[in-house]
């Protein structure tokens, strides 16, 4: 059974229909890349999956439970699906360690000592064990993004949604973040990532989703998608060397 199932998902902003019927199933442990032109609805799809946007029609099921509308159900969903943002969105008034500990304490109710031990483990995991007491402003973009990953991991989600997590980084910092993502994938974490890093998608992902005008236009293993695009839209997209 799939961990995340999306069926007939529609979403409009005002009169513009951004998602026009998305069907997608992601198995546990699968790594899925979402590619597509700007404005094709990639971010909106991710944001619908963890309830940051309300959906107009269709079903989203995570681990067998349907996405509801009430605040309590949304919060239950978000405990299963973590999200990493392009702009990191660390809490600037808290240290790296406190960033990782906070939700653990106030959402999961973990005692302080336990949350701290977990935070140290998670920061170690992303190679930032030494930065526990550093504030986000004292960290490089790549380090901030790794803290954001540790923060999401601390909630022990079943899946992680990554929205262009390296797009805001200087080129020389991209590698360290992708390295962490690659490790997560190797450890069996379920990942859905919107990315412009085609080489990375090809290497790490099990499947690639090409979105076009709010629909899943093509889907398949990276070798097929990049080597034998079937539609002219994907061919043009791949040819442009994204």
């Amino acid at each position: 059974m799939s961990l995340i199932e999306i069926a007939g998902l529609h979403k409009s902003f005002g009169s513009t229909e951004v998602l026009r019927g998305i069907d997608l199933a992601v198995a546990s442990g699968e790594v899925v890349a979402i590619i597509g032109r700007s404005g094709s609805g990639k971010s909106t799809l991710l944001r619908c999956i963890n309830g940051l946007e309300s959906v107009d029609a269709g079903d989203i099921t995570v681990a067998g439970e349907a996405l509801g509308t009430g605040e309590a159900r949304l919060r239950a969903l978000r405990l299963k699906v973590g999200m990493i943002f392009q702009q990191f969105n660390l809490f600037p008034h808290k240290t790296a360690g406190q960033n990782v500990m906070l939700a653990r304490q106030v959402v999961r109710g973990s005692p302080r000592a336990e949350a701290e031990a977990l935070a140290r483990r998670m920061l170690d995991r992303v190679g930032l064990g030494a930065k526990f007491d550093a504030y986000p402003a004292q960290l490089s973009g790549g380090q901030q993004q790794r803290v954001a990953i540790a923060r999401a991991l601390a909630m022990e989600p079943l899946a992680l949604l990554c929205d262009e997590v390296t797009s805001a980084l200087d080129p020389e910092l991209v590698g360290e973040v992708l390295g962490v993502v690659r490790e997560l994938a190797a450890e069996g974490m379920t990942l859905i990532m919107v990315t412009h890093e085609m080489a990375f998608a090809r290497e790490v992902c099990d499947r690639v989703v090409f979105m076009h005008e709010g629909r899943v236009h093509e889907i398949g293993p990276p070798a097929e998608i990049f080597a034998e695009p079937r539609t002219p839209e994907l061919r043009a997209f791949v040819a442009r060397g994204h």
Partner: protein
Amino acid sequence: MTQFTFVDILTNLLWASRWTVLLSLAAFAGGGLLALGLLFAAIGRARWPGRLARLYVEIFQGTPLLMQLFLAFFGLGLLGIDVSPWLAACAALILWSAAFLVEIWRGCVMAIGRGQWEASAALGMGYAAQMRHVVLPQALRLAVPPTVGFSVQVVKGTALTSIIGFLELTKAGTVLSNASFQPFTVFGLVALIYFALCFPLSVGARRLERKLNVAH
């Protein structure tokens, strides 16, 4: 007719300025408390409290403080409620300060970016937890300099209460100037005392602003 020496004038003014200080403190503290209540109405999710808070702000920012003082003093008197100038001055200044403080603070809460809300929501935090652990602590830092800055407006605002006969610094100045026939000396000193009260506040506001900017 008595002769007023410079020292007489100065001591009288200084003595009266304690009322200016007390009134400022009362207005600022009371206004702050009221503003805090209004703030939660203004930024909360419930619709009607939000509307009422906005209406409150519109009314008290959209009318002169002087009119509010008159209404508090004479208006309540007309209703048969006997109010002393002190009470009317306090009430009007508290209501007036609250309207400005709540707008300052609301702006600080609004200044916290959408990303902070979304990141904390994505971690499973509810509205109360987001407010308490993520948004308000950051908004508080932003709020300190403009809040201290506004306290200068409160101090200067107390001068208007002289018109309803509250014997603070300005009123004392008027009385002394009439009695001593030395208006220039008297009001020169009055201005100096106001400056001595306000200057440290504005310097403090600027310092805090610089300090909090660096910390970020």
